[in-house]
């Protein structure tokens, strides 16, 4: 199975289970969790089911394209099921079957891994899912986002799709993954890893980034005061990415570090609280919509899975 087919199978699987199919966000994020389709939508009493690919930027993880397992830009496949259904683990295992990974052939494990993101004031409990000893998914029941307690506890599934593809394709180097046909992951991303690492570690203009951080922060607060939650949150993301790049440049001393993280968290928390209020003012318009859809989708979605499972074998 090539890389893009793997994505398509996940898309098909989760839309079959009643998820909206969204697209990556258009602001740099460190993980799919930071896309507002997760960060904000998990807040409040409205149900939400969504799936999307998220290109994730981790400037400090860059290795100039020389390390077979580490990238400063990689993909996550993100699924949010809010509220988490009682059979969420089984649904997840079904999604692996859809990828041709039959649990009967492997050792699949749910190993404790609690998740916390200090920059967004978010945490949850869950597992890393192991496939024959390899972590392939982060599985989290959110408890708080932006300091706000979850009203409907969402289940978050974050697939590390390069890893899964490497396992399925039996390659040891991410750049050797077949994207499609003769095109390899390296053809698509090797150069951007080299340049990304060079930029993040050596070239990024530190003064500019510090200035930007301050400007983004001020802008976020300013527009949030005018009740514009979503633009305010965009600037939180920009702050966060500026911080990550500064971190890769080793421009932030350890003593300052917590201070910067605290500033981003304060902004994110303000946005989360404002979002909850905004949705409340709007009368929580999504209430009820997903519940009904989900039930309908579940009843015919499960048959589709069976076909899928059959296909994959």
């Amino acid at each position: 199975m090539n890389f893009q087919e793997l994505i398509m199978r996940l898309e098909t699987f989760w839309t079959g289970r009643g998820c909206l199919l969204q697209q990556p966000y258009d602001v740099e994020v460190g993980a799919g969790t930071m896309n507002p389709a997760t960060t904000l939508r998990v807040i409040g009493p409205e149900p939400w089911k969504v799936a999307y690919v998220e290109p994730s930027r981790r400037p400090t993880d860059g290795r100039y394209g020389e390390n077979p397992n580490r990238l400063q830009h990689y993909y996550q496949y993100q699924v949010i099921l809010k509220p988490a259904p009682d059979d969420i683990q089984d649904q997840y295992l079904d999604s692996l079957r859809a990828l041709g990974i039959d649990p009967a052939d492997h050792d699949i494990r749910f190993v404790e891994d609690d998740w916390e993101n200090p920059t967004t004031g978010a945490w949850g409990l869950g597992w890393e899912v192991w496939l024959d000893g390899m972590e392939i998914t982060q599985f989290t029941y959110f408890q708080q986002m932006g300091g706000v307690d979850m009203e409907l506890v969402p289940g978050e599934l974050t697939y590390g799709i390069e890893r899964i593809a490497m396992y399925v394709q039996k390659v040891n180097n991410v750049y050797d993954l077949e994207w499609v046909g003769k095109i390899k992951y390296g053809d698509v991303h090797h150069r951007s890893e080299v340049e990304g690492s060079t930029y993040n570690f050596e070239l990024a203009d530190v003064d500019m980034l510090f200035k930007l951080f301050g400007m983004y922060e001020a802008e976020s607060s300013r527009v949030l005061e005018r009740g514009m939650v979503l633009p305010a949150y965009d600037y939180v993301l920009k702050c966060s990415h500026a911080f990550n790049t500064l971190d890769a440049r080793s421009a932030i001393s350890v003593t300052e570090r917590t201070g910067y993280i605290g500033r981003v968290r304060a902004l994110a928390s303000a946005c989360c609280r404002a979002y909850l209020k905004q949705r409340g003012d709007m009368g929580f318009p999504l209430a009820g919509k997903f519940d009904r859809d989900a039930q309908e989708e579940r009843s015919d979605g499960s048959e589709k899975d069976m076909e899928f499972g059959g296909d994959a074998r």
Partner: protein
Amino acid sequence: MILRDLLFEIGTEEIPARFMTWAIAELERAAAEDLAGLRLSYESLKVTGTPRRIVLYVENVSERQEDFEQTVKGPPKTQALDADGNYTKSALGFAKSRGVQTQDLRFETVGGVEYLFAVVRESGKDAAELLPAFLGGLLKKLVFPKSMYWKDPSVRFARPVRWIVALWDGDLIPVSFGGVNSGYTSRGHRFMGSQSVNIPIAKDYWEIMERESVIVDHERRKEMIVDGIEKIEGEIGGRAERDSELLEENAQLVEYPIPFPGSFEGEFLDIPEEVLIATMKKNQRYFPVRDSSGRLMANFIGVSNNRARDMAVVRDGNERVLRARLHDAAFFWKEDLQKPLESLLPRLEKLLYQERLGSVLAKSERVRSLASRLVSEMGWDDIAEAVDRAAYLSKADLVTSMVFEFPEVQGVMGREYAKRGNESLAVANAIFEQYLPRFAGDELPKALEGAVIGLCDRADTIAAIHKAGLSPSGSQDPYGLRRAARCVNEIIWGMDLDIDMGALLGESGEALEAGGDVMAKVFDFYKNRLHNQLRERGYEYGTTSLAVASMWRRPLQAQRMLEAFDEVSGAEWFGSLVLSAVRVNNILGKLTDAEIASVKLTEDKLKVTAEKNLKEALDRQGSVVSDALARYDWKAVSKALSDLSPAISSFFDDVMVMSDDPAERSCRLALLLKCRDMFDSIGDFSLLK
């Protein structure tokens, strides 16, 4: 009596392995306590579990609660009966409040007074009535180190509860938790069993579960893992260390253990073995394997939770993961070797030790200067150079790629990089040994160099964290100060180092510019820990208090003093000595300073034999004691005291100190003053009271 079996299975999503051992013990304790409170007898009680279930099984429980009889005290007879011998209103009110008739009232004498008593009887209820609340209560009592909610925020558990089986033989016990109602339906192994399993009657549970490929009993899973390991050892010709924590963790990560062998490329064995072991154990939960000469082999043993159709697939997958990790480790190893440790030091400035205390570089510089002072105070000139160099480099490995990836190999990497960077062996080893002992029962430093750095580092930590206002409290000790103090004492006692910890802590405080109030806390904290640690060694409270009060600055001497005193603390003379010391203090304590100053010993005024004997004993032993104290010769101190004790006792027996004759009294008080001075030079004997 009819007996039944009780089965209670809490079915969950995968509970973290590290919670299980504790949760099992906790549930067992709570269940036993509650059953006793409910007056339900039983033959045996067992709690066990897997990642997906916590199971309580109570065998042969009585079907009815035992009857209950209790007498309750009421008003005295004088108030309970009127002049005609009838019950008063107050007596009848008491009976009513206890729910008994007058025939259940009786009189009993307590302390010479007759009181009215009510005999309260309660006939035992049917156990079936009591069990739902009992089981429901247990669910609420199980509190985990970290718990979550999944629907109702007030319902918390380690992970979501998905099913509950609660059976009383074949009857259902209704229990509800977080929207889940108890039933007859359990679940088998996630991959090797059925999704839905009917348990018709409690006693069939274990057999049905085994058929469903669930080994519920965690002890049995451990045995199975060990059996599997032994078999694999035979095949590959090596031996896996039976690390009990790793074994426990593996047992709690599976419902059915299937140990399997794996291997990796021999070239990775060039990497220091601590790194290989950390990768295998911590990241992958594998058992590393050694050959007959103790060398690490390129093999490992993993434990699968599933008998895959082809176990080679599981093995290959695990080998791939390990290989990728070892590749990383090899890369870090190579990369780190390019940079001498010394060149890394500037980067320590960017590594935060603690927010209020600055960088690791600052800390390591403090430790270096403390170490050099300690070495010169102790006159250990021959190691001065190595200690200084090792202290200088001691934290450099914290910024290597390897330690960044595997924090638990700090010190190990410092040693390895130092060796390869042409540092002396003493320096390299000290960089590692500064961290010893790392856990209870771990080895101590073999050489003095590492011990010195370790002591100074921990003294600095204790003082610094107190200065930052983060002293431990209750169960909170995030900076591990108690452990630091414990290690200090273990090193001092284990290596026989007569170090002045009072001075070392004081110097640490000076370097941090800590105020007097902070240092008072530091010293109190340290004394407290010393006291605790000595008590753990089995010494009595009183003697420990004496030794700590006198000798805490020199923990080696505190321990030796305690040892010497502990040996004689049961002897009669020692008991008398303590009494005498207390009497001396009592008598002298009543005098004013002026009276004390005027006390005078005139030799020819000593008339009574006991007086003379005491004087002689004091003359004889006074210098012995002070010499022995100067040499910290506790045996000699104790021997001198054993000689003095009868003299002091007879003195008190035969002599009236507060004589009416002023000269006589003055003499006698003078003798007591001498006694007190000597006692005080040793310690506060009133602590032994």
